């Protein structure tokens, strides 16, 4: 099965639409959204509705901390994220908020675990930023592959037969074999607000049959997304960071 994994869309319509168009050209069997559909970006309604439509068509969608906050739950957040989420809350109607509130925190099928943040306690929203921080996720599940988001920088880690967890250096755009002798964890990177210095939407293509993952980047109308943020009166920093991907 070929799964397109998208996460941390953050209300960036331009990036979301561009990635979905790219996905359509890759012949996937399933789309998985790993949460944070809203927050930061200037178009939360559109992104929410698009996600809901994808779910109606069979896609999987996980709840992220921003979705939780936008639905009304109390979440500890930075001032910047707080400002954006307050604005977002007012933009969403009750149906959209209910959609976000009803999303699951994690989902496992065919030995693949989908979760927004660290798998050991999905609701605690721990960041998986290194191999050390990936270790608790491996301990929490027997799944062969853990797919997550939350950190806007892609990461690939493996857990070998002896339980040693190591980050693996990889190149985007190339299929990386997920050796069956190890278990794997991939932080796929953010669609709507990449922070690894590349101003392109990040997503991943997983082929469970071949046992491969490809980290992909899709270019989108960055300037358009930034101007929407400005037009909405959101903090300027949210617009400029899109331009540099930081």
């Amino acid at each position, binding site marked *: 099965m070929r799964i397109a994994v998208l996460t941390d869309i953050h209300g960036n319509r331009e990036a979301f639409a561009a990635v979905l168009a790219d996905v359509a050209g890759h012949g996937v069997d399933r789309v998985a959204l790993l949460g944070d559909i809203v927050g930061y970006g200037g178009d939360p309604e559109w992104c929410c509705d698009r996600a809901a439509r994808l779910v109606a068509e069979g896609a999987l969608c996980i709840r992220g901390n921003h979705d939780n906050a936008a639905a009304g739950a109390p979440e500890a957040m930075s001032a910047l994220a707080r400002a954006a989420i307050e604005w977002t809350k007012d933009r969403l109607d009750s149906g959209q908020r209910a959609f976000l509130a009803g999303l699951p925190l994690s989902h496992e099928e065919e030995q693949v675990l989908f979760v927004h943040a660290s798998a050991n306690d999905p609701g605690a929203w721990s960041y998986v930023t290194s191999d050390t921080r990936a270790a608790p996720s491996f301990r929490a599940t027997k799944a062969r592959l853990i797919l997550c988001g939350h950190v806007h920088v892609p990461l690939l880690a493996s857990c070998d037969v002896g339980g040693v967890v190591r980050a693996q250096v990889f190149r985007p755009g190339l299929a990386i074999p997920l050796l069956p*002798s190890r278990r794997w964890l991939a932080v796929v990177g953010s669609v709507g607000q990449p922070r690894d210095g590349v101003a392109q939407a990040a997503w991943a293509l997983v082929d469970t049959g071949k046992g491969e993952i490809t980290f992909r980047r899709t270019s989108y109308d960055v300037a358009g997304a930034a101007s929407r943020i400005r037009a909405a009166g959101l903090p300027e920093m949210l617009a400029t960071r899109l331009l540099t991907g930081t």
Partner: protein
Amino acid sequence: MQLRPHTGLKIDGFPLGEKLHTGGFATIWDVTHPDHDLPMVMKVPTILDGYDGPTIVGFEVEQMIMPRLSGPHVPRVLGSGGFEVMPYIVVEKIDGGSFLQVFQKAPLPLSDVIEIAARMVHAVADLHRQHVIHLDLKPENFLQRKTGEMVLVDYGLSRHDLLPDLLAEEFKIPMGTFPYIAPEQYLRCRDDPRSDLFALGAMLYVLATGKMPWGTPETLRGVRKRLWRDPVPPRAIRPEIPEWLQEIILRALVVDPMRRYQTAAQMAFDLGHPQQVKLTDRAHKMKQDGWLQVFDRWRVMRKLRKFEAPKSMAAQMAAVPVIVTAVDLSPEGERLADALRNAIKRMLVTEPEARIACVNILKTARIGIDQTTDDQGNNLHVARLVALKAWAEAIDLPDHRLTCAVLEGPDPGQAIIDYATTNKVDHILMGARGHSTTRRYLGSVSAQVVAEAHCSVTVIRVQ
């Protein structure tokens, strides 16, 4: 691991036959399978009880790299299994067997050394083309097909340029086989294809002289010595070794990878054109460097932590392309030959490290005996070569980067294509003749080359 291999065990449809070999890290078994009608062997890593890191990771690296390789120089993979039941990998059996026996007969007759060297370098060039650095080249890892091609086996220490390096973090000591390991491998570098060229150089040294260039060190200290101590020149051991062969061997064994051969293709090219190998002091050297020189090197090298590795394998291979230019030297072709030469000069601006091979085709009859001399009794081949060299002189390149060759054959297009294939050429530059009667009846040579060559082809026209 639940199962241990033994004769009679059946796993995933492969019944194990006789045990063929017991190595340090694996056992090799004869196997068959109802779906595959060819001789096959199964390699089963010998995992010690408990956690045996090096063997496990080495086996994982093989499982990752081998299925991605293709062509005559690598064994075909037919199956593999994970650690849950019994780890194994099944590959085709290479009928000609290991190359170790041949090595044990070294020194070999020089004609054999040269012929074997060419086949070994071709196999390595093919592996590098597929983004893989072997990093453990030694005689045991070269097998031969009955058809003559060398097959490289044992990818447990290898590095795929485009895939994660599972071994990078795993071990803190240098990995490889001590007599053949390159200086940068001693310094823990795992991403330089030139390390394989060093190992090739060491093996050619053995084939030609019957001695190991640095003996058989058993400690890392012993391996480290090669950073400053030069080997005894091959010609000092066996004076009949030609200077050009010593030049090739010692150039492959240069300590600094930047001053070694830069690609396997370059090395193959020199082995194929012995008369045109540029001879340096290395070629004439008859004894090891004096103690003062060695001491100076030791002072620098003992502090060295790493050599500069190339940005990527692809970049390394693309930086030193071999470009072939096929020239028509007939009077009608004069304007085209000028245009071609200008095109090469322009190309050298963007490819400053390129090596240019100028070829001219002497067409021979398909049937019957050819005239090898003209009416005045001059040798046609020599006359062509002289004319070609005169034409090439104006390209203004140093000798070691310029080669001239007159190819003979009934089909000029095929002659160019064959030359490009055997010499691992990256780019062909040739002219297209205008609309002539010959072309209408015989078809265009350039069109044939464009259609059938394996590399890039640029066709130049005079307007």
